[in-house]
């Protein structure tokens, strides 16, 4: 065990002895997200560096505190990328935070989510033990899939120290088409197109304009463009980055921002101004709206609503409440990894 891991492990052991909560933090780019952070600050930013990257294996292993920027730049040099296009929100975003928050960008419905790319993790659990799950190979079904379980766990199960991800080749060409549609037309169109073999890699709709990103071989893009029509959007790369990073005015002017995740073909929610992504499966809404109303509306379509950003964090936490049975199960899982409830208490649910 390296010195920095040893020190973190000792720190966690001491916290366990004193039953003292720890607030795990990477670059702090997602401090706003989830329930109110509690506990003594425990930073991972010293755990830096790419441990192993083999472009021909499509696998990268890096320490959790490595800047997402560094990962992205290193991959780009080899013509690869993180297929789930994680949002950074600030330049300080780390790989560990990207995995723990479980957030994926515009490519998610077409390429996969964070958890789909996690191959292995090294963690320190709530007893201070250094453990490895998964591995550095693409196919591995030995043992329970604890590595993927870490994605989106908001640091409540363990301190991520090292992560192995599957990488994705960058597409040879990309273009973005623009269409004038109202919300219902856009939802309908996206649902129909994604059921066809088209090289779609991103969809976004706002204020009457649908943007559709195509990725693939130049010939395939030309064929798709002929089939779909629309206008070509200039500087499309900047647009998709702004969507992913919430830099568009829709996001920056929101006092509170709701994130509704539901089946893409669900009809318009009619809850005010909306920004659609993921073929309609991700809908951003301005708040404040009544939380119960938002949640009831989302669950009517077998989806869920998260208060993504807000001035004041809600008491029950920002995430859609779980059924009692599922919550009890997750409490038992939490106790497996973190029996003394040290890690990020309340960041995911008040009970975890």
């Amino acid at each position, binding site marked *: 065990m390296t010195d920095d891991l040893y020190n973190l492990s000792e720190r966690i052991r001491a916290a366990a002895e004193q039953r003292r909560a720890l607030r795990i933090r990477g670059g702090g780019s997602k401090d706003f997200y989830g329930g109110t952070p509690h506990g003594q600050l425990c930073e991972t930013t010293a755990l830096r560096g790419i441990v192993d990257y083999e472009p021909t*294996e499509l696998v990268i292993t890096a320490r959790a505190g490595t800047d997402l920027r560094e990962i992205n730049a290193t991959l780009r040099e080899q013509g690869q990328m993180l297929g789930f296009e994680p949002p950074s929100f600030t330049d300080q975003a780390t790989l560990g935070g990207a995995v723990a928050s479980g957030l994926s960008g515009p490519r998610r419905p077409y390429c996969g989510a964070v958890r789909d790319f996690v191959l292995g993790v090294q963690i320190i659990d709530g007893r201070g033990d250094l453990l490895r799950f998964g591995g550095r190979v693409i196919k591995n079904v030995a043992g329970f899939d604890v590595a993927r379980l870490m994605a989106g766990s908001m640091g409540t*199960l363990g301190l991520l120290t090292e992560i192995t991800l599957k990488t994705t080749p960058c597409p040879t060409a990309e273009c973005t088409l623009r269409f004038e549609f109202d919300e219902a037309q856009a939802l309908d169109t996206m649902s129909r197109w994604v059921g066809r073999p088209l090289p779609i890699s991103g969809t976004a709709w706002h204020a009457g304009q649908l943007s559709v990103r195509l990725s693939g071989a130049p010939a*395939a893009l030309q064929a798709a463009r002929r089939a779909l029509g629309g206008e070509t959007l200039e500087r499309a790369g900047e647009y998709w980055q702004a969507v992913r990073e919430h830099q568009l005015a829709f996001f920056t002017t929101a006092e509170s921002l709701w994130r509704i995740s539901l089946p893409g073909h669900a009809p318009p929610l009619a809850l005010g101004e909306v920004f659609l992504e993921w073929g309609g499966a991700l809908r951003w809404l301005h708040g404040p709206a009544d939380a119960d109303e938002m949640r009831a509306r989302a669950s009517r379509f077998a989806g869920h609503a998260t208060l993504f950003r807000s001035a004041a964090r809600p008491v029950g936490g920002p*995430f859609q409440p779980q059924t009692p*049975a*599922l919550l009890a199960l997750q409490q038992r*899982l939490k106790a497996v990894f973190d029996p003394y409830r040290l890690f990020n208490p309340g960041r995911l649910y008040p009970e975890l």
Partner: protein
Amino acid sequence: MSNSYSAKDSAFIARLRKLLPTDAVLSEREELKAYECDALTMYRVLPLAVVLPENETQVEAVLKLCHEARVPVVARGAGTGLSGGATPRTGAVLMSLARLNRIIEIDPLARAARVQPGVRNLAISEAATPFGLYYAPDPSSQIACSIGGNVAENSGGVHCLKYGLTVHNVLALRVVTIAGEVLQIGGGALDQPGYDLLALLSGSEGLLAVVTEVTVRLIAKPQCARVVLAAFDSVVTAGQAVADMIGGGIIPAGLEMMDRATIAAVEPFVHAGYPMDVEAILLCESDGSAVEVADEVERMEAVLRRAGAIECRVSRDEAERLRFWAGRKAAFPAIGALAADYYCMDGSIPRKALATVLQGIREMEGRYGLRCANVFHAGDGNLHPLILFDANVPDELSRAEAFGGEILELCVRQGGSITGEHGVGLEKINHMCVQFGSGELEIFRAVKRAFDQHGLLNPGKAIPTLKRCVEFGRMHVHAGDIPFPDLPRF
């Protein structure tokens, strides 16, 4: 012939009969025989009884009873698993999900299929065909294997480098815990709040819960597909060609390698027209629209030739494409025809370690006095060495098992895994102690307890006890040969 049950067992079976239709509880020895093993036929055990529930309510009732009576339950799909995940256990109830075989809904708009666990993998794609959709993961047993079994094993297939494993294609599950609690995991959305229980349940080998409903993602059927067949005079060159292709940004829909022994076995068997007298054949499939495929095939061919392929052929039509694949698909039976028995291994390795591992296997062939043919899911590093033996020759089975075990250890040493897609089951349970340390194994056991406090679901599979690992360490000295493999241990 009737089994001689103890009074306690008879009383328990009588209670099972009260919960289910008459023909849904089997307890005659002859009936039980049909369920004594899955596709790992070297382990055979008769269960206490077999139950065939027809709906979730019956699954729930049986599990509740077993929970209350502390009787273990082994869930079984189609019984095509290769690692003994569905091998029964003495004194346990074997629960076949074969009668939960309804396709509940194909929703073309949501591009999802909601099905019961006993539905066959291929039946989902067949039902989705009218909508131009299909279910992508295609394990080689797809005509027979069930989707419930696929979830339990997180099955892969020939196309999983591009389209993912089962875990990447399941949107939601309904499961029943051993305590009889029904849980809905995931819904219609692309993510869910809280811990990713879908990921945890995928590949959990029947240890955590019994699946009663699966919602899978359907995708648009590619318009066309073509295969490039490339021959190489060394496996090292073939391996390098794979690395060049993937490093060059090409993700083939399928990428398979066969070694000399496999080619020699399959060509006379299916007459696929493979070049003979070569060390390795690669099959690279491209799928998509006609323009995409034309573009990708051209790039594939260029990479393969540059890497040193001595021959390159592109399938000219669908018949030829299927003929190229026929050899690969017949690899297991063709090799099976060469020897009385074969033992199929399932290690996964970083692709760069291929030459080292194949070299190691060649050396072991000499040492164990057994032949081994290799097929390789080259795109994702999943190696299937097929060890040929004759179970009627004294000690050949144990030599084959020891040989296989050593291959797995070599895979782990090279940074790989003891199982890429077949699961641990009964077969590789000892080798879990090689791949994981005691801390990780203890977490696995605790995860199991979080779902199943008394250890009643598929006990003795997938996750070894601490004592078992200690014993394996000792017994390993004796070539890994475990006496009485059908006896429950600890």
